[in-house]
C-alpha cells in the first residue's frame, strides 16, 4: 500500500480515489498531462531514502547539529553585527505561538492581533529612537541601510553617498549590492576612531545624496561628532543617515537628537537569538514628512478608529509599494521578518525604559573593564583610544609577533574561547581583532580571556 503521509491528509488511498472519481480521472497525472513531456522529469528524484518516522528524523537532525560547538558551551567574544544578548523567555514564548508562527499576510480583520503587534513594534521603536515614523522591518540592518541611502537619493535626486572607512565590510558590500547606479565615496577616520571631519568637508558636494555613519562604529567606539556631521551634511543639502544599535539607546543619545534624518539598524540585539545569523532584521525610521514617507518601500501599519471606537490597523499608502506598482514602486518589497517585529515588541515591552538603561550601563561597564584589563597585557594594544566604546573594541596584536589567526586557534582549541573577529584582512589595521562583550559576558569570562591571552602571547 502507498505510504499515508502524516503531513498530507489526502495521500489517504481511499480519499484520493474518491477525489479522482469525482473528477472522473484515473490518476493525478491526467490533470497535468497537458504539460509537454520535454518539461517533465522522466525519472524519480535521486534523493536519500526518507526518514518517515519522526523519531528517526529527530535522531538524525539532532545528530548533525550536535557537531556544533556553541557560544553557550564555549566563551565567545564574537560580535561584528550579530550579538549574544540575553533573550527573555517571554520572547521565545510569544514567537513560538502557533498563531504568530504560522500566520502570513492576513490583514485588518482576521489578523487583528498580529497587526496590533506590528503597530506596537513601530510605536515602541519610535520611542526608543524618538522618531515618529517607523516601518515594518526588513531583512536585516544592511537592507535598511541600503534603503536609507537610496531613500536619500529619491529625496534629493543626488547620486553619491558618503560612508566612513570604519564601516563593516559585510555591510559595505551589501550596500554596494543594493545601491546600484549610485556612487560610493569613502571618508576616513582619525586615530581615535572619530570621523575625519576635514576630509568629510572636502568630499561633500552638490551631488552628495547622504552621509551615512554607523554609531557605534563597526570598531565599537562611539562617534562623538554626530551633530557636526549632521550640520555639515545638511549644509551641503544632503541627508544624514545613522545606523544605530538599538541595545545602546537606553543610555546613548538616539541619532534623532544629533540631527539624523534617517535612522536604520538591526533589531537582532533586542530579542532575537543569533541562530547562525537567522535572527537579523532591519529597522528604518524617519520623521513623518511626505518626502520620507512616500519613499519607504516597506509596509507602514497605520492605526484607524471606527465609530464604535474600535481600532484597526491597515497598510497605509500602499500605492507606493512594488506590490501595487511593480517596477514603478519604491524599490521592491517582500516577505521580511514579521516574527522578529513581534519579538522585538515583546522585548521592548518587557524591558521598559529602565531595563534598556540598565542593559546599556551594564555593557558600558563591561567594555570598560574588559578594555582596561586587556590593555594591561604585554604585546597588546587597544586601538581608537581614548574614544568611549560600547560593546565592542579593537585589540591589536602587532607587537606580539603573533597573528590573530594563530591566537584565535589556540584560544579555541586550548581554552574553548572564541576570540574576537579577525580584522587582519580587510581593514588595514594589522593584526587586529574585534572583541565583543554583552550583558551575558561575565567578569569571570573576561578574566579567563585575559589569563589565556597573557599565556599565549608570552609563549
Amino acid at each position, binding site marked *: 500500500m502507498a*505510504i499515508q*503521509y502524516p503531513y498530507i*491528509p489526502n495521500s489517504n488511498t481511499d480519499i484520493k480515489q474518491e*477525489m479522482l472519481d469525482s*473528477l472522473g480521472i484515473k490518476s*493525478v497525472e491526467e*490533470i*497535468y498531462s497537458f*504539460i509537454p513531456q520535454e518539461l*517533465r522529469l522522466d525519472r*524519480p528524484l535521486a*534523493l536519500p531514502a*526518507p526518514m518517515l518516522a519522526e523519531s528517526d*528524523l529527530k535522531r538524525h*537532525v539532532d545528530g*548533525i*547539529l550536535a557537531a*556544533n560547538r556553541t557560544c*553557550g*558551551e564555549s566563551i565567545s567574544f564574537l560580535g561584528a553585527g*550579530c550579538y549574544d544578548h540575553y533573550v527573555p523567555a517571554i520572547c521565545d514564548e510569544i514567537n513560538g505561538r502557533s498563531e504568530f*508562527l504560522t500566520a502570513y499576510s492576513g490583514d485588518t*480583520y482576521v*489578523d487583528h*492581533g*498580529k497587526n496590533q*503587534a506590528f*503597530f506596537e513594534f513601530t*510605536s515602541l521603536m519610535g520611542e526608543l529612537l524618538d522618531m515618529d515614523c*517607523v516601518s515594518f522591518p526588513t*531583512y*536585516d540592518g544592511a537592507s535598511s541601510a541600503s534603503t536609507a541611502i537610496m531613500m536619500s537619493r529619491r529625496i534629493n535626486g543626488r547620486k553619491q553617498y558618503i560612508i566612513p572607512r570604519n564601516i563593516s565590510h559585510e*555591510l559595505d558590500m551589501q550596500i554596494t*549590492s543594493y545601491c546600484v547606479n549610485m556612487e560610493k565615496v569613502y571618508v576616513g577616520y582619525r586615530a581615535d576612531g572619530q570621523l575625519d571631519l576635514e576630509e568629510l568637508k572636502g568630499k561633500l558636494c552638490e551631488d552628495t545624496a547622504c552621509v551615512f555613519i554607523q554609531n557605534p562604529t563597526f570598531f565599537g567606539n562611539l562617534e*562623538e561628532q554626530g551633530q557636526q556631521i549632521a550640520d555639515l551634511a545638511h549644509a551641503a543639502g544632503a541627508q544624514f543617515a545613522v545606523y544605530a544599535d538599538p541595545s545602546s539607546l*537606553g543610555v546613548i543619545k538616539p541619532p534623532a537628537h544629533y540631527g539624523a534624518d534617517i535612522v536604520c539598524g538591526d533589531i537582532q540585539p533586542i530579542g532575537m537569538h543569533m*541562530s*547562525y545569523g537567522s535572527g537579523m532584521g532591519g529597522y528604518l525610521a524617519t520623521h513623518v*514628512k511626505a518626502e520620507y514617507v*512616500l519613499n519607504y518601500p516597506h509596509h*507602514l501599519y497605520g492605526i484607524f478608529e471606527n465609530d*464604535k471606537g474600535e*481600532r484597526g490597523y491597515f497598510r497605509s499608502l500602499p500605492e507606493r509599494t*512594488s506590490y501595487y506598482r511593480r*517596477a514603478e*514602486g519604491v524599490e*521592491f518589497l517582500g*516577505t521580511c521578518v514579521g516574527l522578529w517585529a513581534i519579538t522585538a*515588541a515583546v522585548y521592548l*515591552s518587557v*524591558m*521598559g525604559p*529602565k*531595563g*534598556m538603561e540598565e542593559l546599556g*550601563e*551594564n555593557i558600558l*561597564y563591561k567594555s570598560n*573593564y574588559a578594555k582596561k584589563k586587556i590593555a594591561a597585557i604585554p604585546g597588546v594594544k587597544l586601538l581608537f583610544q581614548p574614544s568611549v566604546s560600547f560593546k565592542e573594541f579593537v585589540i591589536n596584536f602587532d607587537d606580539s609577533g603573533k597573528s590573530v589567526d594563530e591566537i584565535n586557534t589556540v584560544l579555541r582549541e586550548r581554552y574553548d574561547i572564541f576570540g574576537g573577529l579577525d580584522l587582519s584582512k580587510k581593514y588595514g589595521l594589522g593584526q587586529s581583532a574585534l572583541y565583543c562583550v554583552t550583558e551575558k559576558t561575565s*567578569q569571570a569570562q573576561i578574566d579567563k580571556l585575559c589569563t589565556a591571552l597573557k599565556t599565549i602571547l608570552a609563549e
Partner: protein
Amino acid sequence: WDEPIIFELSDPGSRGILIAPPEDDVKAAAEGELLPAALKRLKLPALPEIAQPQVLRHFLRLSQETMGQDINIDIGLGTCTMKYSPKINEQFVRNPKLTEMHPLQDPASAQGILKLMYDFEQLIKEISGMDAFSFQPAGGGAGIYSNAAILKKYFEERGEAEQRTQVITTILSHPLDSAAPATCGFEVITLMPDECGYPSLESLKAVLSEKTAGIFITNPEDTGVFNPIIKQFIDEVHKVGGLCICDMADYNGMLGIIRPREMGADMCHFNLHKSFSSPHGCMGPACAAQGVTAELAKYLPIPRVTFDGKTYGLDYGEEHSVGKIRQFHGVVAAVVRAYAWVMSLGADGLKTVAETAILNNNYMMKRLIEEVRGISIPWSEVECHRLEQVRYSWEQLYRDTGVCSDDINRRMQDFGFQRFFPSHHPLIVAEPYTPEPTESYSKADIDEYVEALKHISNEAYENPEVVKTAPHRGSISNVPNNTIENPEDLCVTWRVYKRKNNLA
C-alpha cells in the same frame, strides 16, 4: 479580547524583567563617567513600564486574535502556499545547538550546521536540476534581486552591461519579478497575456533584442495558469543572448514533476517558507534558495559552504561574487526546517506533495464552478488546466448582487477562515479570488471551505447586507475610512496617534 495598546498598560515604575548589575570589580574599574555628556541620552525612552504577567497576557491575547495556518483551514491565501509546518522542525530550530551559534564562528566549531547547509544544497540541486545554490536571500524578493544582481554581474564581466539593459517579464508574473530587476537598475518590459492566460510567443519575440538581459518569469503564473510553451520562451531568449530566470516561489505543484533545469532556466529561486514548509512567521523571517547553472555559480553571494570530503568550510572569495545580499548566511533556520522536511518525505513524498496539491486544487475547482453561484474562471474558455491554484472571479456575483470580492473576503472570517488573497496588482481579473488548497488540507477541510463559500454566495443573492457589513464575529468590526490622502497624516506610531488625539 478588547486589548489596549501596550502603552496603555504602563504603570510607571513597574519592571518586566531585571538586568543584572555588573559585578562589583567591574563596577569598581570605572573611573568617573563612562559616557561623555554629549553622548548621553538625557531622557529615558518613553517605553511602557509593565510587569511580566501583564506583558505576557497582552501578547498572548494578540496571538489568539491572529489566524495562523496552524489554527485554520488556510486555503484562501493563494500564491502563499500555506502548508503545514511540522512541529518537530521547530524543535530543531529552537535547539541551543542552533540558536546559540554565532555566524562568524570558526568553521571548525560549526561543522554541524555547515554540513546541514551543504547537504541541503545537494538535495535541492537534485530537486531543481540546478548546479549551485545560495541560501542567503532572506525572502522571495531578495532571491529575485540576487538573481538580477548576478544577471548584471554576468554581463558586466562579459562587457555587455551597457548594452543589455532590458529585462522582460509578464504582467501575471509576481510583481517582484518586475520590481526587483528594476531596483537593480534594469528597464522592465512587461508582456500581457493572450486569450490563453499567458503571453504569446510572438509578443515575446517582438520585444527581444540585443538589449535583452533576460526574462524573469513565474510559471505557473500568478493565476495558476501554466504556460506550456515556457521552453520555447526560454529558447527564444537564449537565442538573443539573454538569460532566463524562473521564479519558482510557488513550486508546490511541481515537486518531482517539473524542474527549472528541464525548462532551461539559468537561474531560479525557491521560497523555503512556501513549498518547503518553513513557517511564514507573520511575514518572515524567510529564505529564498537561489539556484543557478554551473556557469553562474561563481557569481553567487558569499560566503559559500565548501566541503573537501572531510571538513566543511566557508569560501569568502569576492572575485566574481555579487557580494552580500544579506548579512552572514541568510536565515539558516529556514534551511534547517526545509532540510528536515525534505528528509522526512524523500522523492516519493515530494511527488505526493505536488500531486496532492494539484488534486486538491482541481477537486475544489470543480466543486466551486459547479456549485457556487456567481464565480467563474478567467481564461478557461479554450481549456482549463490548473495546477496548484486558480484565480477565480466574483464578477458575475458582483453584477448580480452588488457584493464584491472584498465583502466576501470579510465575511469569510465569520466562518472561521483566514481572508483570501484576491490578486496581485494590477487587477487584471475583476473581483479576483485566488485560493490555494495545498496538500496540507483534507478533503473534509476543502468541503467545509467550499460550503462556506456556497453559503456566502447564497447570502449575497438573498441577503447581501449581511455580507457587505461583515465581519460580524471578528475581533473588530468594519473600520471605514482607512485610507489617508496626505502622507503626513500617516500614523504608524502611538506617539503620533496620541498627539493627534490629544491623549496624555
